[in-house]
């Protein structure tokens, strides 16, 4: 009977978190908690750990992106484009980890109603994709600029400035401004995330459709082959790196600039040095021109405040430029040949097409391919604009608030603001606004909030040592939600794999991981776990990189490594694409690689099958 018990996931209401996490509930909004009131419904659903969006314990304010996508992703499926049998994805927190659930299909009559709307609305999008994309980008840039323009008061002045009183009083002052500005930022994030899914659900649907057609024609075709046929080369996510290449080339034409950039100093020293010469100024002007938007790129996934962005960690782009300049001077080519990438993709498609035997099938393949290609760019382009550019602006603005709160004794450090959720921050802001209004020498409850920050940091730290259950509740009979299938790969096999992992597996007992077979090839070598981009200084030639995810800010890493393994990311993720280009094996989206694998472990990476084997554990 013990076995039978192990083959079920725990009921979400009975699931216990370790005692060190006590008090975690207060970090998150109440609708994120499993609750008695919704207990009957919650117990019937299947909840699985969202390793893609919440691979690490969730800082309270960073939950805002999750809150926003829960609404937006779901509404496009259920109410906007009406994907007939699919419903939304619900989220819950258990400790600082997020579980999600693809809700079961609606009643048949609703499916029928949705089908009619789907045809009308969805086909229109495909027919007008290019113009819709132009409109999307225009309005998205406008939104980001609006956020950038939000003024966060630098301080609470002793007296309001004269010009706000005379000749005509503005009527509202800094005590109101700080509340309004914060509300505006929150609203903009929610709006930006509404835009985020404008075409994404359809993009994923089209991808799944093409994948299905390919598998019907070629039963053994690999996901990596499908990804290769669909992926584009000229996508926004690659622009930051291209801009770096251009700046590096410019530097080599200005020898004094190249020499400064090749130096060992920090970015700010180099900038000060460059300021002194005409050539240096010319180069800095070019850098400034490129930086917005292209260096508003997260050093991670863009989902967490602590990842940082090129623009506020200039040492990162400067270190890349240093190595690019050196490589250029050695006569190497640093640019990816995008035309080449495109050509290779077209050839791949043509070769598969040639293998198809019947004319009807060839037509269907062409139709499916053209359909997915019409829209697939969206999956690749939106990412830069939302998760990178837009989030970078958000984090910077929030830090201005953090600074204000720290200056007014509410928190110790700027980043402590991320330890409060979006509903709590107005409370802190209201208190300082009130204190300021009340007059001089008004005490605040700073110690109360500082204690909260300390406690929450401890909870998050304790949580990072804990491996929560991969799933909770009852496995579903069927899944129709496109993201669930494509991003999380929820299938019978996956559920079985999770069930297998239920018997309290310790990380050190795991010897094999599965992920997407993103780039072919098999190699063996020592692992280097890089939790943060800043750890790359430790990376040695020929190591196998194990990291949460990569993006173009990691690009120069790929010339050093033997293979890549990521926690997050599918077949068209950055790591997958770059590894295919460099001919390095890659297994992406393993979910757990960075928590299971330790630096120094000897790994075998099989990019053909998506299996990573830990051959020998480091001592």
């Amino acid at each position, binding site marked *: 009977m013990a076995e039978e018990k192990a083959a079920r996931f725990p009921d979400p209401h009975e699931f216990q978190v370790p005692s060190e996490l006590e008090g975690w509930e207060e970090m998150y909004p109440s609708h994120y908690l499993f609750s008695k009131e919704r207990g009957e419904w919650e117990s019937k659903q299947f909840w699985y750990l969202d390793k893609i969006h919440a691979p690490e314990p969730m800082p309270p304010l960073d939950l805002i992106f999750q809150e926003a996508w829960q609404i937006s992703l779901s509404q496009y499926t259920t109410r906007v484009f009406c994907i007939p049998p699919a419903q939304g994805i619900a989220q819950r927190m258990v400790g600082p980890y997020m579980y999600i659930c693809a809700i079961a299909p609606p009643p048949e009559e609703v499916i029928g109603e949705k089908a009619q709307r789907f045809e009308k609305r969805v086909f229109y999008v495909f027919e007008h994709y290019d113009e819709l994309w132009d409109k999307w980008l225009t309005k998205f840039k406008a939104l980001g600029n609006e956020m950038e323009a939000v003024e966060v008061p630098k301080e609470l002045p002793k007296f309001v400035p004269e010009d706000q009183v005379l000749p005509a009083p503005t009527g509202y002052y800094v005590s109101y401004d700080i509340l309004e500005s914060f509300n505006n930022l929150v609203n903009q994030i929610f709006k930006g995330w509404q835009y985020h899914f404008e075409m994404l659900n359809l993009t994923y649907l089209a991808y799944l459709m093409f994948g299905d057609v390919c598998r019907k024609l070629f039963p053994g075709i690999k996901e990596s082959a499908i990804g290769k046929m669909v992926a584009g080369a000229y996508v926004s996510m690659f622009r930051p790196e291209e801009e770096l290449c251009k700046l590096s080339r410019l530097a080599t034409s200005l020898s004094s600039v190249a020499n400064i950039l090749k130096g060992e100093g920090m970015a700010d020293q180099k900038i000060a040095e460059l300021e002194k010469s005409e050539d240096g100024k010319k180069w800095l002007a070019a850098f400034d021109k490129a930086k917005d938007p292209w260096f508003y790129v997260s050093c991670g996934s863009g989902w967490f405040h602590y990842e940082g962005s090129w623009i506020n960690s200039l040492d990162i782009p400067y270190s890349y430029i240093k190595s690019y300049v050196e490589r250029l001077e050695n006569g190497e080519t640093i640019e990816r040949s995008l035309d080449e990438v495109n050509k290779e993709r077209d050839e791949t498609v043509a070769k598969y097409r040639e293998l198809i035997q019947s004319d009807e099938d060839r037509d269907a393949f062409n*139709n499916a391919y053209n359909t997915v290609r019409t829209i697939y760019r969206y999956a690749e382009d939106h990412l830069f604009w939302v998760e990178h550019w837009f989030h970078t602006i958000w984090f910077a603005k929030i830090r201005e608030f953090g600074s204000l709160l720290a200056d007014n004794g509410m928190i110790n450090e700027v980043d402590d603001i991320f330890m409060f959720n979006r509903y709590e921050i107005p409370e802190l802001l209201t208190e300082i606004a009130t204190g300021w209004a009340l007059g001089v020498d008004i005490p605040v409850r700073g110690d109360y909030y500082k204690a909260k920050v300390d406690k929450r940091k401890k909870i998050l730290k304790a949580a990072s040592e804990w491996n929560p259950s991969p799933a909770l509740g009852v496995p579903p009979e069927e899944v129709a939600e496109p993201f669930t299938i494509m991003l999380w790969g929820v299938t*019978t096999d996956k559920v079985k794999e999770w069930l297998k992992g239920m018997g309290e597996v310790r990380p050190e007992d795991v010897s094999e991981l599965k992920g997407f077979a993103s780039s072919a090839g098999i190699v063996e070598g020592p692992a280097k776990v890089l939790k943060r981009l800043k750890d790359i200084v430790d990376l040695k030639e020929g190591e196998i990189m194990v990291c949460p995810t990569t993006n173009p800010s990691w690009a120069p890493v790929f010339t050093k490594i033997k293979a890549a393994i990521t926690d997050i990311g599918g077949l068209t993720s950055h790591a997958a694409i770059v590894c295919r280009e460099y001919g390095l094996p890659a297994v992406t989206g393993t979910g757990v690689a960075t928590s299971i694998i330790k630096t120094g472990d000897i790994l075998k990476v099989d990019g053909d099958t998506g299996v990573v084997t830990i051959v020998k554990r480091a001592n």
Partner: protein
Amino acid sequence: MEPPTKPIPNPLKLEREMDYTLDFEELNKNSLQMVGGKNASLGEMIGAGIHVPPGFAVTTDSYLRFITETGIKGAIFQALSGLSVDDVEALNNASAEVQNLINNVPMSDNVRVAIEEGYAQLCTKCVVETVPVAVRSSATAEDLPTASFAGQQDTYLWVEGIENVIDSVQRCWASLFTPRAISYRIKNDFSHEKVLISVGVQKMVNSRTAGVMFTINPTDGDLSKVVIEGSWGLGETVVSGSVNPDKFVVDKVLLEISDKTISTKHIQCVYDPDRGEVVNADVEPDMQSKCCMGDYEIKELVKIGKEIEKHYGRAMDIEWAIDKDFSFPESVFIVQARPETVWSQRKKESVIGKKSGYQLLMEQAMKRIKIQG
């Protein structure tokens, strides 16, 4: 009993009246009637630039001359007349009688001279005094609709010296009259006298590793895959299924090896110089679980497989061998190729149907993935 009818003359044959043997290099797919499917296919591949071990075909004419000139023809067809598939004993007796006749009568002079000459030339070409050869029957396949049936005929490996070659040729001819072949023809109403056979005499590959290759995945009909099975020694262990071979599945487009199964290969088919024949020997313990070929060899085979497939315009079933006496890529030989018959016959109809992108998208949107708990 009707006298045996002569095969329909073809232009090549008219030009060269006395073609008892033909070098593989002279053959192509149009030579099928004279040299049978296997030999014609080898010639066709040589013409297409595929690396095939040299050899020559003993033509169907030789067989006809042989049974005529030795005077055994009448006795053969006499023995075969009036047989019934139900009378197994009579069938077996007739088969034994006919095979005995063919095996034991001395080779007719004209044919002997031709084979001697062919073998001598092959030895000269290979710079070996008595080159070891594989002697294989090559059916004209007029009465044999499936390739698998053709495989019933005999193969003699590592045959050395002219007397042994001639003996093996006669045995191959005799294989036309196994009980199974006789009963098959009776069942399908084919005349025993119209059936012809040719024999191929081909330089042995001194193979380190050998096996088969399909330019389609035989398990699921996937046209985008090449499936290779290989094992140590001569390919016979793989062809006969007497070892679990190593198996590789390679994508034709990306040239990625998507599946690699390394099996424990206990035995290998090798030439035993003491016994002067090919034997199944034990594989050294440390070699049993070792992959029998390198990725570079797999990729070379895939390249060749794709060329052969392209040349024939259809999925192929290929036998190959890697010679230990040559350096790569000259070491990789193709020893046989025939059309794949199982999937090729049924794969013509559309699997998706006539559908627009929107129809496909709508279907996808309606899809639900079943989860079995």
